[in-house]
């Protein structure tokens, strides 16, 4: 690994509930036993990594996106804004111009191309970030405000914030949203390696295929962690072998791991089975990153 630049590792999955947060929090705890590590919860619609991190936020900041605001006194109702908005977020309705902030992508087209400067961009709060430091572990939570529909602007700003404020954290982990749509693409963008969490069931396999297709489309380096290994069938394993996709670790299906998780505990500290899987995962990620 290039020591001068932080290594960014995303933990993602197609299917929800396959263990992204289990892997993220335990891997972060494991790494921070030896070296500085940053964990960022980018599952902004339902961030839950904080449950496993001790301590209170030492810093909280509001995050904004820019939304045009109609200045009636300057507007000549020329209609340019409505024509220029690709997202149909700015409409001219009779003698008024209405801005639908839930559709706005903050592209500035309406504002910049308005001949009368009647649509100045104004900040609109979309979420909050919280930061705490716990020994060698830095933690950052990103939480989307209620009623906000777009996760991507917050995720993009969270990445920028990390680049500005945590450039000396040599290992950075990003707990991503589930699925394969825009929020996942924004969350995994600019990361060096993606860990795809899955489970050995037909549902796990179906959504893993979609996630792999997405990562290949993005030209990402990735590998798979099979969680709850021992239940279901061999199809996920067979698929990974036939597609030559590295299986980074197998986390056994184990009642004690589930109990610790349900109580908000970091199982890697006391549970040897999980500790073995997480250490194997870390070694395998390092090997893949060092190979080129």
């Amino acid at each position, binding site marked *: 690994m290039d020591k001068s630049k932080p290594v960014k590792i995303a933990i993602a999955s197609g299917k929800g509930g396959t263990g992204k947060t289990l892997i993220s929090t335990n891997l972060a705890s494991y790494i921070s036993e030896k070296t500085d590590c940053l964990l960022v919860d980018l599952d902004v619609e339902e961030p839950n990594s904080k449950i496993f991190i001790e301590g209170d936020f030492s810093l909280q900041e509001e995050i904004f996106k820019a939304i045009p605001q109609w200045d009636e006194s300057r507007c000549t109702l020329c209609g340019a804004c*409505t024509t220029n*908005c*690709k*997202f*149909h*977020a700015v*409409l*001219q*309705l*009779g003698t008024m111009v*209405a801005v*639908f902030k*839930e*559709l706005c*992508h903050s592209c500035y087209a309406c504002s910049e191309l308005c001949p009368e400067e009647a649509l100045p961009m104004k900040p609109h709060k979309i979420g909050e970030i919280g930061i705490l430091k716990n020994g060698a572990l830095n933690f950052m939570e990103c939480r989307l405000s209620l009623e906000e529909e777009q996760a991507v602007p917050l995720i993009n700003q969270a990445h920028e914030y990390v680049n500005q404020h945590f450039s000396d954290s040599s290992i950075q982990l990003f707990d991503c949203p589930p699925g394969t749509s825009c929020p996942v693409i924004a969350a995994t963008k600019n990361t060096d390696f993606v860990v795809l969490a899955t489970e050995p069931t037909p549902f796990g396999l179906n959504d893993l295929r979609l996630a792999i297709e997405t990562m290949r489309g993005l030209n990402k380096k990735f590998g798979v962690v099979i969680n709850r290994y021992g239940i279901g069938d061999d199809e996920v394993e067979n698929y990974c072998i036939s597609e030559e996709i590295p299986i980074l670790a197998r986390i056994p299906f184990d009642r004690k791991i589930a109990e610790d998780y349900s109580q908000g505990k970091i199982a890697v500290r006391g549970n040897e089975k999980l500790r073995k899987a997480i250490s194997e995962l870390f070694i395998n990620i390092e090997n893949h990153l060092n190979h080129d």
Partner: protein
Amino acid sequence: MKILFTSTGSEWDSLIDSRFGRAEHLVIFDTDTNELKSYDNSAVKNEAHGAGTATAQKVFDLKPDVIITGNGPGETALKILNLLELNIYVDAHNLTLKESYEKFQNEQLQKL
């Protein structure tokens, strides 16, 4: 009175398009002149976002008194339509424009 149908075609025999935002045609029947006029809305299929507001903008400019449609407009489109004084009738699935108009006259359509 102007009645607007979300339609799959431009004739009385065309079927209602159940979708509002992505309706292929917007057809207006003017009860004063007995004139049926169709507006092609199929370009909306190229829109990844904001189909509902794009169609609502067109409907706003057509200023109908009544809308007859299927699923009904979404939340954002409805905000726009609520600026007009109009009545929206939904659930006209699988009916031709003619059939849905008859049901409207007989007060058999569900009002939103």
